[in-house]
Structures are given as C-alpha cells and as structure tokens.
C-alpha cells in the first residue's frame, strides 16, 4: 500500500530528526490535578434522541442501535 510506504519514510525521518533526550514527558500543558465535580442531579435532554435518530445508520423501533452480530456467536 502506497500510504503505508510513505508512512514508513515519514516516521523514519521524523524520529531521526529528534535524537536523544533526558527530560520528563509533558502530557498536560495545564498542570492542574484533581479536576473533579460532585455527583449531583442527573439531566436528560429529551431532544437529543431525535438527533441520534437522524445520524444513526440503523435503529430499531425501540431505539436500540443495530450493529453487527458477535463473531463468536453462531
């Protein structure tokens, strides 16, 4: 596959450009911790279902998505 070939070249050149380093990783630019919320009253947007319906490839009459059958189930 052509994309695959190109990808290999891209990866080689990008990683070669870096070289070695001994620093800790920056996973988060904002150095906050413990971003939490308290459990509170639940909310439901009734109209949300309409948009799910609009976008779903396949829904049954009850509103379940219909997806593939499990491979390991005969």
């Amino acid at each position, binding site marked *: 596959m052509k994309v695959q070939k190109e990808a290999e070249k891209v990866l080689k050149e990008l990683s070669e450009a870096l070289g070695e380093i001994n620093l800790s990783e920056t996973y988060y630019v904002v150095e906050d911790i413990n971003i*939490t919320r308290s459990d509170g009253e*639940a*909310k439901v947007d009734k109209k949300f*279902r309409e948009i799910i319906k609009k976008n779903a490839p396949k829904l049954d009459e009850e509103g379940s*998505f219909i997806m593939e059958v499990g491979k390991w189930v005969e």
Partner: protein
Amino acid sequence: MRDDEQSESERNAERWIEMKVIIGFEIHEQLNTKTKLYCDSPTNYRDVPPNTHVCEVCTGMPGAKPYPVNQDAIDAAVEIALMLNCEIVKEPIYIQRKHYDYPDLPSGYQRTSLPIGRNGSLSGIGIWEVHLEEDPGKYDPITGKVDYNRSGVPLVEVVTAPEIYSPEDARNFLRELTKVLSYTGKVRPEGGTMRTDTNISIEGGARVEIKNINSIKGAYRALKFEITRQKNLRKRGVAVKRETRAFLEAQMITKTMRVKEEAEDYRYIPDPDIPPLVITSAKIESIKKTMPEAPHLKEQRFIRQYGIKKDDAWAITGEIEMADAFEEVCKEIDPKTAAPFFRHIIKKKLNFDNKTFSESGLTAGDITTILKSMNLGELTASSGELVIRGIIEEHKPALHIIEEKGLKRITEKDVVEKAVEEAIAENQRAVQDYLSGKVEALNFVVGSVMRKTRGRADAQTVLEMLKRKLEK
C-alpha cells in the same frame, strides 16, 4: 449429547483431580452515583427505553469531552480499596484510554484509571489492585442491538491475585467480596450488577480468560465447566490454548471468543482531556473516619464482644443493616438470646423470601419488643416467629401485629379459669369419659380451652387447672 460428555469428563476429572487449579478474578461492580462518571446523564438505566439516558459524552458524539471526574465515584473507589486493605496510591493516577474496537464502546476506547489501591487482601486472597473505570454500553451479540444507557456508569474493578484454587473457594471469595462491597453502601443495591472476568489455568497449562460472567453462581458454573474442559484436553494429550472464552449462561458452557495470538494491544495513553488524580492523605483520613468496619472484622468483634457463636456472628454480619440492628437489640437483650433468634428466625425468613434485611422493614425496635415479650413469657417462641413474619409480610410494627393477631399470651388466671369452666360445661361427655378412666379424653377439653383463648393460654397451665377442677 452434552450430558454424555459431561459424565465422561467427570470421570476423567477424577483421574486428574490432583492437578492444581489456579484461579484469579477481575470483578467489576457499578458504583451507586446519581450521574455518570464523565457526564450528567442518569445512572439508572433500568426500565427506560434504550438510548434515552444518554448525552453526547456517553454516546461518543464528535467533539464531546469528558466532564470533570465524578468525585463521589473516586471516593467510593478509595473506600472500597481501603476496605480491602489496599495501600492507596500516592502518585498521580492517570485516567488511561484503553483502545479496542467493539460495538458497546462509543468512543473506541474505555477510560480506565491506573490503580487507586494496591496490595490488599480479603479472606487470605491477595488483591492486586482496585481502580475506576467507565461501563461500556450494553451489546447483545446475538441480535447486534446496542443501548448506551449504561455507557459511562462508574465501575470499580477489583483484581485478585491468582490465589484461588477451586470453584468452591472462588464462590466463597465472591460472596465475601460482595458482602464487603455492599457494606460500603457505595455499590448499586439492586444486585446483579457484578461482572467478572476470570483467569483460570491448570498447573502446567496455558491461562484461559473467561468473560461474560454475571453472577456468583455463573462464576461457579463457568469454572466447573472450564476445569472439566481443560482437564479433558490435557488427558487426551491436547495442549490448552491461551485464549479468551465467553461464558454462555443459558447453556452453562464456555466458548472461544478469540485466541491470544491475535492478542489485543490496547495502546494505552493517558487521556489528554483529563488531568491526573491525586489522592491526598487528608482525603484518605477523612474516608477512613466514616467508612464502615469490614464484615470479617465485625464478625470477629461480635464473637469477642458478645460471646456469641461463630456461625451466628457470620450470619448476622452478612448484611451491615442486620449487624447494626443486632448491636442495637443487644443494648436491652442478652446477646446469647438475640443471636440465635437473628440467625434461626429472622435470617431463615429472609432467605425464604429472598429478601435483604433492609428490604424487610424489620427494625431493631421491633425485634427488641418481640424478644422482651418472649423473655417475659408474654409471647411464645412460635408467636415470636409469627410476629416476624407479620412485620415482613404486612409492613406493620410488632405491637400492631401482636395486637391484631391476638398473639399475647393470656396469663390472667381468671380469664383462663373462665374458659376452663366453660369448656367443662360444654364438653360433659369428654369429662365423664375422663372421670371414668379414659385419660386421653381430657386432651379434647384442653383443645376447647385453647380454641376459646385463641392459643394464647399456656397448654400446660390449662391441663393442670382442668385436672384440679375435675378432681374436686
């Protein structure tokens, strides 16, 4: 066909019985929060139509980001870890994305935290870790139906060391764990939300993972089946494959889902949308202050403090609400009287009705009333049991039931005497028979007295009173 196989394999199993079985669990239990782990959708997905208790976050709509983590879920996981004697991790706990492609995963990855607690133990079995994750949606592999109402409900996962050596031990362990979890009050009380993945291997064989186990009974059956299957293979000289199997509850068998050669690489990365969690010592201390005593510790304390039998203590501590009620009752009643009553009368009725103590409506006050009356001789043992049944079935207080059913023993001598005199007058034939030597004829008269007093008189007292009257 399967029956034949099983009986054959059972015979085989006997020959291979000396081979050591090694079992480990990953147990998932839903936490009892109002909102989901990363959004404000409701967690009660039962009895609502599919895909209604959802939003863009828990259905993986493009652009949705997780809300800040539900603090109550974190606290619950910490408490459960503490109850399982874990060390709480002090380093930053990253929420990882665990990638895999499956219909029930709306984002193509599941958010799962690094361990919150480590190196715990329960019933002598090591607890490797406790962590927090989000429940996927519900996928029925047979019809292909997917409902995301469950997606995002907080789960606590408990990972045990592979230190369980038989299906029976496995069952006992799971029962004990369920007890601990329900003690915290932080897991969903409905029951049936426990899901376990089990690793099982037979000495010298490959490890097999069994998924889709949804109950303790299911775990026991799946293990039984799997041990037989593996031993059977080994006996025929076939190597056990390292694989993931699904437990099909209805058929009570396990079935290959995927072989490990195609083992999945989950490509874990810390979720860039969620900064790490840090559990502070202050937080740990405040949870420790309010968390309940672990059931096995409570059991030991009951034996020590109240001088009751181990079996009684075990039964009473089965449920924290019952254990609390017992302690309350013991403020006024001798524990040695109360304990057997709890175990043989109350627990028996609850088991029969398949109810928990908290569902039963029983209170420490009611139980104290009953036991007091029994001690005073106002209530017979069998009446006491009737009152318990009445409370559970009719949801009325003890005094009300005693009154309504007229269960209070009649001790007033003149009332009994009056009934005896009436009975003698009404049953002259039986009286004559008795007086002419037919001793057993008197039982008929006693029965009449008991009917008149609706069973509240003491039969022995009645008999003696009758004899005295007739001998005059």
